[in-house]
């Protein structure tokens, strides 16, 4: 059992999606995260264990390597793809409650801002840490965040901005969110954002990288969706 989960973990770390995928070259014609997760389920391994010791463990290493600049955006995206392909086989267990998500994160790039890549990576890392993620995309007006929060009242909100001009839109969005629900946690990020700015606009946290966002979320008290 350890064996298959270690292999699964390696597939996530190295971005091996499925048997067909040619990458990485030395794993050509091997099973990928897709097949291995399916097999693990068929072997009767507890879905929560597959998630935790295979997919989440793999994504954790990926996050650390990305933070330390040992891997870059393309590798990160491939790892995320591998993770998602495994997740597909675990979906039924979320529905039957055999797997509990740690909570929901609503994430989006704020109004006026089209930068998507960084936010997407954060979303993938958070998914890969066992959270349910609602990605609202880019150029997201405050209303849309509020609407999503009504649908997921216990969710944490993540805001991304890559422009100094649109970063200012975060202030209003945070204020509206806090006005609606003062206990909702908001984490912000994106290249121009700083810890001081987060403090100033009343956000609860800032992280320069996805791993920091995962650490923040995991430190929160357990919550339901």
């Amino acid at each position, binding site marked *: 059992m350890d064996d298959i989960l270690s292999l699964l973990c390696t597939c996530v770390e190295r971005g091996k999606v499925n048997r067909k995928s040619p990458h990485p070259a030395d794993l050509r014609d091997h099973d990928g995260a897709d097949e291995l997760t399916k097999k693990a389920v068929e072997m009767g391994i507890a879905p929560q264990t597959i998630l935790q010791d295979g997919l989440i463990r793999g994504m954790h290493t990926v996050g650390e390597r990305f933070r330390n600049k040992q891997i870059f955006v393309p590798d990160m*995206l491939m790892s995320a793809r591998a993770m998602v392909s495994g997740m597909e086989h675990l979906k039924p267990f979320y529905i039957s409650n055999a797997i509990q998500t740690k909570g929901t994160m609503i994430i989006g790039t704020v109004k*006026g801002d089209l930068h998507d890549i960084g936010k997407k990576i954060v979303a993938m890392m958070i998914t890969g840490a066992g959270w349910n993620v609602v990605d609202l995309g880019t150029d997201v007006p405050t209303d849309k965040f509020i609407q999503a929060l009504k649908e997921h009242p216990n969710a944490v909100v993540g805001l991304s901005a890559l422009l*100094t*001009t649109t970063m200012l839109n975060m202030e209003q969005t945070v204020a509206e969110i806090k006005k609606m629900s003062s206990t909702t946690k908001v984490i912000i990020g994106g290249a*121009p954002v700083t810890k001081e700015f987060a403090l100033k606009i009343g956000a609860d946290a800032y992280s320069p990288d996805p791993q920091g966002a995962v650490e923040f979320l995991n430190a929160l008290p357990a919550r339901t969706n």
Partner: protein
Amino acid sequence: MNPVIEIGITAEEIEKRRLRVQKAKRFETPDRIPVIPAIAHRFLVPKTGIRFKDYYSDPETMLRAQLLSQKWLMENIRTDAHSITGAWVGAWTDFQNTFEAGSLGCEIHFFDDDIPWVGEGWIKTDSDLRKLEKMDFIHSGINAKQLLYREAMIAVAEKYPVRFLGGEIFYPGMNPNLTHTSDGPFGIAGDLMGQVEAFEAVIERPDFLRELLHIIIDKMIEYLDHCWKVEKLPVPKDFAWTDDLAMSLSAEQYRDVVLTEELRLRNHFDGYLSMHMCGKTDHLLKIFADELRINEYQGFGYQVDLDLVSEVMGGRVVLVGNVDPMLIYSGTPEEIRQATRTVIEKLGPKRGLIIQDGSNISPGTPLENINAMMEAAELYGRYE
């Protein structure tokens, strides 16, 4: 006789700045380290009271806004900038980051009070590559518009005479630049495929991506030759380009898919080569210096390690950077002076330094913060 746009800087001062910058670019010793904040039109055009809607819809308004912008810049910003004409400065057909994708099949969205955005990418398959190959990059989309705007600017050039104090009258609109490069080869691939798809292709479909980049470079070279002809630009050819999106590749990935094609572009130019890349590019510095053999690294990101860039490029690549634009936006003048001082102390001794932000001053940045860079150069950047 049309009223002359008088710019409140003496011609003599302009000449002094030119010499100072020229010396820095030759690794000689100017009186002090030059400072040129990077202030683009998203900052400047609103200063003229002209809306982006009008700026983009009428070439004469574009030209007028550019000249008034440059007047505002020269009179309000402490800078060693010494030319108000040329691409990315003034008197140019300014479609910035949209012209490549916007002439290769992507839709461009224009707004009343914002700069234009590039729409969705469309290249997915080999047959899309064949379609791309057949496209006329020079005469379609935004590039067709650029040619029209250039003609229209030339037609009204005489209505806009400009003069520095005590200098000769000149007409910037007489030979407006076309936009030469903006998004860079990998950046254009990102526009055309979708950025995430382009990153995935680096790993999953490197051959496809190489082919796409090859076509892009062919088109860029053809287009640039055309620009040189139309604008009667001098030979040897100086060239400035950027490839911001490639910052997110590892050195191996960059070398594997992007470098070969960028070298074709690089080798097409025999003059002074300036490259720009935002962000943390420590891992690419050696490639830029040794393999791409750039002459200048312009507006490099504030995240770049100063000791490393000095070691790898100092004394042989002109360094233009790299004060944190977010600090300039929200810090105090003293913090900015000290940050500038650090750049001067680390990069000044080997010569070839021009202080700039790293990169792109944001709209809304207080003037005293921008000008603090010059104050630091005067305080800490004098060579004698």
